[in-house]
């Protein structure tokens, strides 16, 4: 059979290297390259990316050098110490604990939970949506009923109940508890796009080429909804920072001896703190705002790169 092709085409093994090289010269740049040039063309996006990556690295590494139990010990001498002093860069709270150190460890905890939650719930939601949309039949029907049931549960209340009845929990357990309730939105979104995508002829062509269902779902369809996935993941990440923060603020997040952005913002519950001791809560609030804005800005750029038609930067 190979002879058949040899016979009717004037290309033979001898030409392989030369032609490959020619084709490589004409090759379209890879997605990673397109994304990178997109960032280079958009300075604010680059700044946002540097802020996010730099900050996350800083708190992750910085937290390693801080002895948390010691840091959380009450220190009468530091009672509401003013900020910008040698011992307390950002001042101290009512127990005399350093705000700067709490901010670093707290950010590490909050961001860690947000990353974990985003990875787990998005991965699960994406798989659920892809499988449900692609197989569209009994499988889809069953999966959608489970989805409906999960949607019926009052999420915040369930989390509060679970957190109350589980005796010992830490940030890892908390991440898993949150994950149970945060995959649904993603899965619905992905399912509806998958339904539309599965109807397209390239899926039929792949089936006719003997490609297995799993390969079609994850290698053919998933890349085609990558821009949706990227946008959804970045938005979820920004949102998920808020999830932990919100619950900790209410007192149902991490245990009180574990600092987080939420527990720090909870300092603002005290009217005195709002006006007089602003340094106890303002840094954490500013941090959340800057992080969320940067993340959504970066998300936009990623989406633009994924929709190569909307390309802004020139690729060379």
């Amino acid at each position, binding site marked *: 059979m190979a002879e058949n092709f040899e016979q*009717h085409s004037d290309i033979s093994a001898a030409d392989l290297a030369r032609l490959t090289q020619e*084709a490589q010269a004409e*090759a*379209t740049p890879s997605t990673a390259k397109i994304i990178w040039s997109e960032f280079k063309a958009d300075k604010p996006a680059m700044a946002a990316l540097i802020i996010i990556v730099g900050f996350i690295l800083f708190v992750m590494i910085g937290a390693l050098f801080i002895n948390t139990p010691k840091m959380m010990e009450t220190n009468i001498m530091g009672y509401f110490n003013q900020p910008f002093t040698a011992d307390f860069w950002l001042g101290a709270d009512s127990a005399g604990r350093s705000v700067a150190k709490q901010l670093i460890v707290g950010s590490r905890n909050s961001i860690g939970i947000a990353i974990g939650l985003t990875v787990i719930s998005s991965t699960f939601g994406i798989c659920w949506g892809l499988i449900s949309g692609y197989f569209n039949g009994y499988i889809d029907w069953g999966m959608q009923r489970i989805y409906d049931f999960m949607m019926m549960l009052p999420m915040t209340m369930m989390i509060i109940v679970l957190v109350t009845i589980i005796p010992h929990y830490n940030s890892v357990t908390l991440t898993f508890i949150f994950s149970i309730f945060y995959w649904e939105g993603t899965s619905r979104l992905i399912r509806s796009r998958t339904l539309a995508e599965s109807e397209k002829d390239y899926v*039929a062509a792949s089936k006719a*080429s003997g490609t297995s269902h799993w390969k079609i779902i994850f290698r053919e369809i998933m890349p085609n909804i990558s821009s949706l996935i990227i946008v959804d993941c970045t938005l979820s990440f920004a949102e998920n920072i808020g999830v932990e923060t919100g619950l900790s603020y209410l007192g149902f997040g991490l245990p009180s001896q574990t600092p987080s952005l939420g527990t720090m913002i909870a300092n603002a519950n005290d009217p005195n703190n709002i006006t007089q001791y602003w340094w106890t809560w303002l840094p954490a609030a500013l941090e959340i705002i800057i992080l969320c804005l940067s993340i959504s800005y970066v998300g936009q750029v990623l989406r633009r790169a994924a929709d190569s038609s909307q390309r802004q930067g020139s690729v060379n």
Partner: protein
Amino acid sequence: MSLIEIKDLKVHYPIRSGFWNRITDSVRAVDGVSFNIEAGETYGLVGESGSGKSTTGKSVVGLEKVTSGSIMYKGLDITKAENRRKLDYNHDVQMIFQDSLSSLNPRKRIEDIIAEPLRNFEHLSKDDEKLRVLQLLNIVGLDADALYKYPHQFSGGQRQRIGVARAVATNPKLIIADEPVSALDLSVQAQVLNFMKKIQREFGISYLFISHDLGVVRHMCNNIAIMNRGRLVEIGTRDDIYNHPLHIYTKRLLAAIPETDVNSREAHRASRLAVEQVYQDQQSKYYDDNGAAYPLVQVTPTHAVALPQTIAQQLASQEGEVQA
């Protein structure tokens, strides 16, 4: 023995409605279709849009869940998935799609697109595979530059060539070509049809050529089946269909072929209107009480039409007189 034998093929899509979402009715997209495709020939399947041609084509490739009937290949019924697996069926039967853009994955490079059936069926070494892809590009008249590009970087005609290259990659016995040129410019249509014919000669491929246009099919097909509302209304050789059409639906399709000769345009228009008039007036003669086509009856060894026996004979003899 024929390459493929399709027998009483039916594909019905359920319509669900009501509170319990129960099946209340069905769309009879294909409703009892039988025909055979011989090795090396091009078989034409023609009908207006919505008549069930694509559904028939997809059933033959194994992409459609068939309601009833059989499609025999090498003695096995390939409407069953396990038989398709056993035969490596899609190694031998491939498809070219109407919409070249949506049939090529926009996120994949041309190399990966064309190599997809090879990777699943032939397991070549990396170099052999690349060589085969380059040869295929060469055969369909594209440069090696195309290898690492994406589908949107090509024109419609070039994309359809890529689609053909993918279909030919495993050197199949049969290719279902579902309106392969309908979306292309007239000038490009001829090019694509010509190299499809060239490939057929060189590789000994059979085509099931689907089209809504009898004008395009004339240059491609030896045998033609006319499809209307999920059923075949006329089967015959090219000569039977173009020179001795019996069913009013066939005549109507023939009248719809655009006339390029400016001088006879007026006459063409008149005959088209006359056919349309007959079609409107004689519905009851050509279709049964439910508006469905009759079963096929044989009028000559090669020619069959979906009419009651008596009317078929009568029309055939009239046609014969005109010819005589």
